[in-house]
């Protein structure tokens, strides 16, 4: 199976649910193929690619599609069922980088003090303490736990600096979900996700989504906090060379803080999920 064939078996986000009016169309791309979305009278969307209808589902406030008529089941986020959370689709941002690089950046905390200065990190609190990374027994997910980091403003709802606990899940090659300390509700965790639509191997549309306990901030404030964070990353992501994610350990030297990234790269390789990756040292 080629990397593209493997990638064509997954679901991908292509629009926010309810954004297209009946009859309204939107042209976009997925895995190098042109597709057209059309809003339907019942508030749903159809997706066609070269005359062929693709399956569609709605989950986590987004419309998902797949080039396969029998895609792998979409991963689950149990917190999406918790009605007291606020669900925040943050819109889409285009980034000229491999979809895998976008996910990997989301998994990294060492860059917080330098890229998200005085928000998600600050100097001199740059040390990443040891944490734990596992691949689930069925091999389906990468999970990082016991991640701790000092953050001046961990969330829109955070009043001041706190040590934030993080858990990361990678349930599909182009999806990352993080759970982090929820400042106003210490017994719960906020959920922030990155859903990535691969336009091709070196360009992606990124759809951040959040499920939060924050009843004070306005919706625009929540969205703009997340956009601020992600757009700070964008200029860094676009400058990473090579654009594709190198899987050969000789090409980029990891440190201990990069444990999640190392596990993610290995997991991609083992699963043949290498669309957007460089598999041989160039």
């Amino acid at each position, binding site marked *: 199976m080629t990397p593209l064939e493997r990638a064509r078996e997954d679901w991908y986000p292509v629009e926010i649910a309810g954004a297209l009016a009946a009859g309204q169309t939107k042209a976009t791309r997925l895995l190098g193929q042109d597709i057209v979305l059309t809003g339907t009278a019942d508030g749903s969307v159809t997706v066609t690619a070269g005359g062929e209808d693709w399956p569609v589902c709605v989950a986590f406030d987004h419309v998902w599609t797949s080039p396969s008529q029998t895609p792998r089941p979409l991963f689950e986020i149990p917190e999406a069922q918790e009605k007291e959370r606020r669900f925040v689709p943050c*819109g889409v*941002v285009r980034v000229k980088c491999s979809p895998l690089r976008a996910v990997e950046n989301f998994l990294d905390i060492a860059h917080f003090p330098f890229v998200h200065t005085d928000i998600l990190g600050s100097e001199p609190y740059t040390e990443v303490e040891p944490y734990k990374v596992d691949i689930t027994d069925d091999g389906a997910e990468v999970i990082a736990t016991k991640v701790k980091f000092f953050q001046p403003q961990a969330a829109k709802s955070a009043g001041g600096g706190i040590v934030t606990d993080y858990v990361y899940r990678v349930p599909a090659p182009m999806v990352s979900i993080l759970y982090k300390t929820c400042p106003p509700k210490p017994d719960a965790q906020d959920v922030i996700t990155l859903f990535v639509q691969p336009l091709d191997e070196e360009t992606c549309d990124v759809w951040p989504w959040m499920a939060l306990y924050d009843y004070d901030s*306005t919706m*625009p404030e929540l969205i*703009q906090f997340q956009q*601020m964070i992600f*757009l700070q990353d964008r*200029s860094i992501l676009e400058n990473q060379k090579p654009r594709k994610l190198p899987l050969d350990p000789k090409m980029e030297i990891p440190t201990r803080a990069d444990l999640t990234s190392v596990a993610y790269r290995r997991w991609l390789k083992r699963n043949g999920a290498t669309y957007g990756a460089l598999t041989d040292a160039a």
Partner: protein
Amino acid sequence: MNFTLYSYILSGNCYKIRLLASLLGVEHETIAVDFHPGGAHKSEPMLALNPAGTLPVLVAGDLVLSETQAMLAWMAGKFDASGTWWPQGDADRTAQILQWTGFAGTLTATIGDLRLHTMLGRDIDVDRARAGARTALRTLEAHLAEQVLCGRTWLVGETPTIADIACFPYTALSGDAGLEHDAYPAIRNWLYAVRSLDGFLTMPGIHALHELREGETDHG
């Protein structure tokens, strides 16, 4: 509160108002408007405030401003005790500052548009915007290079003015639109000077200068 700014976090034009406020130490309130994905700047309450449907909008009592040049001039006129950011009394100098705050509109219409396209997928005439952006950057580079030859750092005169603040954001953000600064050394030098100002404020895509610790050098 001195004023209220209706703002979008990724907008270079909203940022220039927050930047000057930060440089002058002017406290204000910011109201987030959902430009993307919500399109709330074209909503009824916002159109009632600003029929042009643009951001930012500045409100101070009965005063409502929707043009960024006017906001910069108002803020400098009202809060800059030094009188250097928007100097009066020299017609030539005042006109030069207006010349460059006007030029900032060209930067918005070219680099700003291109950035909305590459980042948020807005439908625009890409070739026109890219050609316009290159011309604008060359114009700015030529002027700043000339200033450097005269021993100056800023767009007009010996000190930073609202002209620098007006032109800074979209020039600094051109990388977001795929236009790098490699070919524009004078622009790079000037961007560095603005980022070095006391009270400088960042926005996504414009990073802070990394503070050097004692014993470190610029090259280490």
